[in-house]
């Protein structure tokens, strides 16, 4: 059997709370620095310590970044899950385990290779403190893998040096552990294995970053100064990263004081109230949450929609409904976000699919919210937010200025005969607001969630109400021209069949496209990046006869949204859904679509 180079899935089975996360990400980073595309996924329990947790890394030199089923190498460190872990290895694959204690013979499979490394024993030989023995055990298996898979030791060592830049004393013991693991493997096994790595130059200037971190940076670059939030998995790290970066990037150089304010709210309702108060008062503000939080915010979202207040909300989606699968990924909040709140409402959604897009779109959210004076929701998910992704470097155009939308300043007001907060002066549905404190006698108005006339006066007149809500709908039409365009994956259409996808489904979908290509099936592809849908979206659908909409939710919610908003014939849009909480794979997409390809493949 010839060696399989640079194409594998390796899974680490750990116990959570044992410090494995840092060793595991060191592993991924090393491979990434060898010029190889990696795609790591955390599969963790909703608990703090002592339960099985997995870290799965796909390595593929061709740059397929979606998840792939089938495990080539399992690093089984957790006796609790041995049986299950062993069972999940592909025939011919490897099970690397801690051989300090022997494996039960009867657990072992004939069709896979067992590689025992006495990790704990080695660690105990070198280190005395139990906590350190535990920690270095993780480094030991990284060392062993370096030998087994042919990872460059210098690369790992460099990472260790960087990591402990401020605690250089920790470098030597880490090296010692690393070498110990490496040497043990070298001495006892035929290294490298049949599944192995080789340096390439396939990552360009890409970076390896979590979506939530990128979102936080987008908020900083986008000019957010206020954040109100409440902790919830998987969104917590958005505001955490925002704070970490603010502490470096947003300290007033003269006074040492903060050019930002972050308030940990008492709940999600309050978090959204804070955002509304802050943006009403002229700051850029955001909050970040997940499904349950969005449900709790929905009354407030309706207020922002109707009173026309900019809001930026990050929804890092997780498995629903209710508390659902809080540590698993899904895209299940499309409808509840698009139509959040009672009454006739619709909200702008942006769908990033990479950390780079999290960064860019998050910054865009603020411009869109200010321009349209309405809620804008960044629809991320657990997979995107909490896993490292290989992604284009973040870039900022230094000439870019913030689009604060239509705001009258004191000078403007001075010139005005009479100010009317809700006058549609430019006939695009968007009105001019003023910020409290602008002018001593002009421009103040009363904001409310009730019906009001063009001068912001309370009104119970049906005619006035209809005028207002129709104008808000006009604003929606205007928005179609401003939101990001969909991404197309062909110069010109080459098939009557197409696929639509969005967000974290992208990598798997693109990989599936190549698989179809190989099968001789041609499909056109479009990635939705925003709601409302613009003309390009309509055109794609019009030009195709049969379109598969790939989603990670049960009820095919994006499909519903498209049908409803664009008046599409439902039969044209075929559901292709996967909702088990694991990131979707190209194979799943392939299977879902093949099963449904109803007519003979033409062209």
């Amino acid at each position, binding site marked *: 059997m010839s060696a399989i180079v640079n194409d594998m899935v390796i899974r680490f089975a750990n116990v959570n709370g044992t410090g494995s996360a840092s060793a595991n990400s060191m592993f991924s980073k090393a491979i*990434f620095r060898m010029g190889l595309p990696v795609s790591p996924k955390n599969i963790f329990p909703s608990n703090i310590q002592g339960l099985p947790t997995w870290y799965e890394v796909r390595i593929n030199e061709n740059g397929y970044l979606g998840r792939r089923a089938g495990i080539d190498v399992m690093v089984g460190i957790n006796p609790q899950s041995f049986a299950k872990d062993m069972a999940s290895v592909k025939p011919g694959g490897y099970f690397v385990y801690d051989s300090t204690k022997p494996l039960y013979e009867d657990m072992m499979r004939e069709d896979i290779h067992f590689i025992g490394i006495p990790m704990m024993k080695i660690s105990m030989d070198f280190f005395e403190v139990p906590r350190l023995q535990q920690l270095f055990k993780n480094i030991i298996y990284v060392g062993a893998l370096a030998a087994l898979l042919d990872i460059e030791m210098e690369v790992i060592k460099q990472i260790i040096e960087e990591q402990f830049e401020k605690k250089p004393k920790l470098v030597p013991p880490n090296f010692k552990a690393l070498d110990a693991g490496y040497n043990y493997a070298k001495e006892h096994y035929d290294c490298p294995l049949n599944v192995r790595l080789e340096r390439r130059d396939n990552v360009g200037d*890409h*970076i390896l970053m979590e979506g939530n971190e990128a979102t936080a*940076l987008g908020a*900083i*670059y986008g*000019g957010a*100064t206020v954040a109100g939030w409440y902790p919830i998995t998987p969104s917590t790290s958005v505001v955490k990263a925002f704070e970490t*970066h603010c502490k470096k*990037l947003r300290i*007033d150089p003269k*006074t040492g*004081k*903060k*050019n*930002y*304010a*972050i*308030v940990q*709210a*008492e709940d999600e*309702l*309050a*978090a959204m*109230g*804070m*955002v*509304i*108060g*802050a*943006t*009403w*008062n*002229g*700051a850029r*503000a955001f909050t970040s949450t997940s499904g349950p939080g969005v449900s709790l915010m929905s009354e*407030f979202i309706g*207020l922002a929609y109707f009173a026309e207040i900019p809001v930026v909300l990050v929804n890092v989606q997780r498995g629903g409904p209710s508390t659902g699968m809080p540590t698993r990924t899904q895209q299940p909040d499309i409808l509840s976000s698009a139509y959040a709140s009672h009454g006739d409402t619709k909200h702008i959604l942006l769908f990033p699919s990479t950390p780079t897009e999290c960064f860019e779109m998050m910054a865009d959210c603020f411009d869109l919210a200010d321009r349209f004076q309405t809620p804008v929701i960044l629809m991320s998910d657990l997979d995107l937010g909490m896993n490292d992704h290989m992604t284009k*470097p*973040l870039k*900022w*155009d*230094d000439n870019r200025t*913030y689009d604060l939308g239509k705001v009258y300043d004191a000078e403007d007001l001075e010139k005005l005969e009479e100010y009317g907060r809700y006058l549609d002066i430019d006939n695009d549905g968007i009105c001019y607001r*003023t910020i*409290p*404190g602008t*002018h*001593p*006698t002009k421009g*103040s*108005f*009363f*904001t*409310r*969630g*009730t019906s009001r006339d063009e001068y912001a*006066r*309370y*009104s119970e007149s049906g005619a006035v109400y209809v005028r207002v809500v129709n104008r808000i709908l006009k604003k929606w039409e205007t928005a179609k021209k401003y939101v990001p365009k969909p991404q197309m994956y062909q110069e010109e259409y080459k098939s009557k069949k197409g696929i639509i996808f969005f967000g974290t489904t992208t990598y798997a979908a693109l990989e599936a496209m190549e698989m179809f290509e190989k099968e001789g099936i041609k499909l056109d592809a479009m990635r939705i990046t925003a709601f409302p849908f613009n003309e390009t979206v309509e055109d794609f659908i019009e030009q195709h006869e049969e379109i598969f909409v790939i989603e990670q939710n049960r009820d095919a919610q994006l499909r519903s949204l498209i049908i409803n908003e664009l008046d599409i014939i439902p039969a044209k849009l075929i559901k292709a859904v996967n909702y088990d909480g694991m990131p979707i794979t190209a194979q799943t997409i392939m299977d879902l679509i093949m099963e449904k390809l109803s007519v003979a493949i033409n062209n």
Partner: protein
Amino acid sequence: MTYIKPTFRHPALPKNKISFAKADYEGAISTLCAGCGHDSISGSIVQACYEMSIEPHKLAKISGIGCSSKTPTYFLSNSHGFNSVHGRMPSVTTGANMANRDLIYLGVSGDGDTASIGMGQFVHAIRRNLNMVYIVMNNGCYGLTKGQDSATADFGSVSKPGSVNQFQAIDLVGMALELNATFVARSFSGDKTQLIPLIKAAMSHPGFAFIDVISPCVTFNNNKGSTKSYDFVRDHIEATSVLDFVPQKDEITVSYEEGNSATVPLHDGSLIELRKLSPEWNPTDRYSAFVRLQKAKMKGEILTGLLYIDPESTELHDLMGTTDVPLNTLREAELCPGNATLESINQNFR
């Protein structure tokens, strides 16, 4: 329906230091019931702002939902106002304050709005010592939804249809004290002499200034047997002190007898002058305020006046270390670190 008053002002009207007439602090004509306590409170707010020479655009008025929460339409029409959603005024005010620390934030709420649906937000605004004036127009009932008992209705109080309340009242003043609020007062809509200086002092206080104002609902809760009726309150009121507010730089004009009087200097240089009516109590000692309040409750007295003030109060922005400039004035130059910085950030992720 909003009635717009004529804006013509007689030139000979008296003006305050910043050349505004009292009428400049008024609002639209009230649509509340004739005689509603809330309207009196609006009047006191107007008077206090006029006398304090507050620039109307430097004040933001924020409320929830209810008859009480409607009042911001009826005062200070030159100020921005925000009638938000039921019970959520505190969070909206928190956000507004974060965006611009330089305005005065006047939050208006009702007892339903605060003590029921808004309880959590009330508690947490106190905990953060948010720099705001928080006025509850407390009528012991839900006016706008036609008179249901609220959570501040007293045990044994009789409603208009005759039912007797079975639940213990939530005493918002007691809660504020327990929660370490830095300015705690109670007053009565019918007692402007007391309420106006309290509002002024509250506006000068750097931190959370709470005033629970008992404000009879003449339509639904002014009947015999109600403990929030005008007559009952007037008959059971007990003040901690007679007080005066002396703005920054003004001369002290009142002078009380030695021994019974106290002067509390505020952060901005203004003073609160108090003639104490109960000797064991000290307005800057939380414990004595606690004891005084508990004793009043046991006696069935409604204790009013300034109960407690922390002259050392540090407000939220200072607790957090926010910059002195309002955040809403910062632009690209201060906020956006630029592409070069981003490139070095990228480098950490390779």
